[in-house]
């Protein structure tokens, strides 16, 4: 049977959006999403909340969660599926496609750069990632376990292309932390 989406589509979408807004405004800060839906595995609750809050018929989506996840996303958001390079939102439960192959936008239209939503094994407020950039007072640290191999190097390789780039949201359970394209991992 199809798992439900938000209990209250209007207010739950609003609070999920505010969580993402806060996460992107304060890169590296761990923000809980409550209430979050329970999407079919391997989609995480946070990932499900982002999809329901932000995706619709206007947003081509890529996902690797299998048929049940695809059905759930299609039913609740109405979003069309696309190949990774054409997707506005990517929901990666496993290894994401090579970052340089995704839509980075153009210098004139950098807002076309995709949003990559990625499941990770754990998120901790203190950790090995030292972050700097807009939204961060001096420097913060974030602990992320379960990042794909070479992920940070691939991301760092996109930095010179700014304002083109990818915005990344890590999900763990119902928690998120974001790395917008402006954030530098030092």
């Amino acid at each position: 049977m199809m798992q439900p989406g938000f209990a209250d589509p209007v207010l739950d979408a609003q609070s999920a959006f505010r969580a993402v807004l806060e996460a992107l405004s304060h890169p590296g800060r761990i923000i809980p999403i409550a209430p979050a839906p329970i999407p079919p595995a391997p989609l995480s609750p946070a990932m499900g909340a982002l999809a329901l809050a932000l995706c619709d018929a206007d947003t081509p989506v890529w996902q690797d969660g299998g048929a049940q996840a695809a059905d759930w996303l299609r039913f609740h958001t109405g979003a069309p599926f696309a190949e990774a390079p054409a997707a506005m939102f990517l929901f990666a439960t496993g290894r994401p496609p090579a970052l340089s192959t995704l839509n980075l936008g153009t210098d004139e239209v950098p807002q076309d750069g995709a949003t990559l939503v990625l499941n990770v094994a754990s998120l901790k407020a203190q950790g090995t990632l030292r972050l700097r950039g807009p939204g961060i007072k001096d420097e913060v640290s974030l602990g992320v376990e379960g990042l794909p191999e070479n992920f940070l190097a691939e991301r760092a390789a996109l930095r010179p292309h700014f304002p083109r780039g990818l915005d990344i949201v890590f999900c763990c359970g119902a928690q998120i932390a974001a790395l917008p394209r402006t954030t530098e991992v030092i």
Partner: protein
Amino acid sequence: MNIPVNPVAEQLAGYNFAYLDEATKRMIRRAILKAVAVPGHQVPFGAREMPLPYGWGTGGIQVTASILGPRDVLKVIDQGADDTTNAVSIRRFFGRVAGVRTTDRTREATIVQTRHRIPETALREGQVLVYQVPMPEPLFRLEPRVSETTRLHALGDYGLMQVRLYEDIVKHGEVATAYNHPVMVNARYLMSPSPIPSFDNPKMHMNPALQLFGAGREKRIYAVPPYTAVQSLDFEDHPFRPIRAPHACALCNSTESYLDEVITDDQGGRMFVCSDTDYCAERRGE
């Protein structure tokens, strides 16, 4: 004076929460997120017709409607004042279509929608300042073609604006912008701060609050995330100078706040009072 937080107004039946439909909110929310990710860059959005005319803050209202939740406390100011027509009608609008609490107190508010001022009371982390923007394009008067300004932003080529400021100095001996003084955001994008007095420009720099800008008629949203460098454009030998009338407020004696000049009669009588009514009232102990 009002009590700090006004009671919840009765929500109007027949409207979605915060007036806009959900598809519109999602579209605006996506634009806001990308605006935060590329600080100072103008993101186009499909502005809707609002129950207010253009020029009354339709951009700011749509941004506010898209971020607003039932737990928010909303403050609306028009040139610093909580009690002018524009501020009162926008506050009442959201009281009725979203049932949110409203306030005059900067400290109590989680969202402050503003027309052309930044409150004197320092904003804190977690607050959102929503600006109403008439003309988002800082290069508009120098280059009317949008295709061309888009390219100049892509290239980060802002020589035109530097030349304009230079010509001001040649003609007037100083940069002659008292408001809407262009700023560089995160050392990358030239941005219009909306027509706030240049006095307020330094408050944008490294502000702990999130700053969102909405232009309804021009259909653009842009943002300055918290703790982001915002530098007013200037020259080494002509540094940026915020302007303030050299007086004390006639009501609260403040020598720090931005002052409005008020004509009191037709004999040349005038007084200077704080533009920020909440700040002034608080100093007077009201």
